[in-house]
């Protein structure tokens, strides 16, 4: 989300909701239960829309948002599942291709691309009580729609 706030005046953003990664009827994780993010894999588009709306409302998600159709056309075209980042330049070409999430989902690389083009945006480290780790000073963490951690490399 911080990347969006930092660069929304320079670049457009679009979050695309694709098929669920850890639905209750497939590979549900303990963290899904803990975070109360329990959904079956949508079988209809209406179910997919409902989950996407739950997500954006729950997290007050500020990025422009869209939903992949049940044909999974966007997901297939971009090999997007379970989560992935791309940047498309003004000429409609792939300017950045992120790795497959969650292990290679790296918002900092997106920030790096944007910073190289539009300049870095620095954030002051938040004042926090002793013993509490401050948030990333670089603000590198961008939101992935996935709200629950992946097994090895947690998705933010």
């Amino acid at each position, binding site marked *: 989300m911080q990347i969006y706030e930092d660069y929304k005046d320079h670049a457009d953003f679009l979050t695309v909701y694709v098929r669920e990664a850890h639905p209750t009827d497939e590979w549900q994780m303990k963290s899904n239960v803990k975070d109360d993010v329990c959904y079956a894999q949508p079988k209809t588009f209406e179910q997919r829309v409902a989950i996407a709306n739950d997500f954006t409302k729950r997290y007050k998600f500020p990025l422009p948002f869209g*939903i992949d159709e049940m044909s999974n056309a966007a997901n297939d075209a*971009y090999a997007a599942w379970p*989560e992935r980042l791309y940047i*498309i330049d003004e000429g409609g070409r792939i300017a950045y*291709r992120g790795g497959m999430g969650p292990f290679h989902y790296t918002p900092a690389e997106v920030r790096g691309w944007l910073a190289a083009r539009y300049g870095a945006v620095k954030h002051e480290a938040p004042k926090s009580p002793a013993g509490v780790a401050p948030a990333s000073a670089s603000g590198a963490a961008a939101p992935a729609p996935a709200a629950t951690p992946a097994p090895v490399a947690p998705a933010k």
Partner: protein
Amino acid sequence: MNRFWKWTAGIFSVLLMAAFAVLSYMAGSPKDAYGMVRYALPHMHRGTLRLGSDAPDARIVALDGITRFHIRERTQQRPLVLVFGSFT
């Protein structure tokens, strides 16, 4: 020959168990290892897109479930950061 096949099967079994043990450790539990193999790996693809290649288009639906637009409609003025993901 019979002994050869027994050894081969034995070694293969040990390697298989070791691989599953490592996967279970990485995933968090044997159940998660099974979930990864059964549900995740079949859907994970590196893809064929390369830097500089034309970005594929796809039709996307807005949160209202009705309005439709195309990814390429959003790529004409400024760079477009695409974030793919789901809730869970």
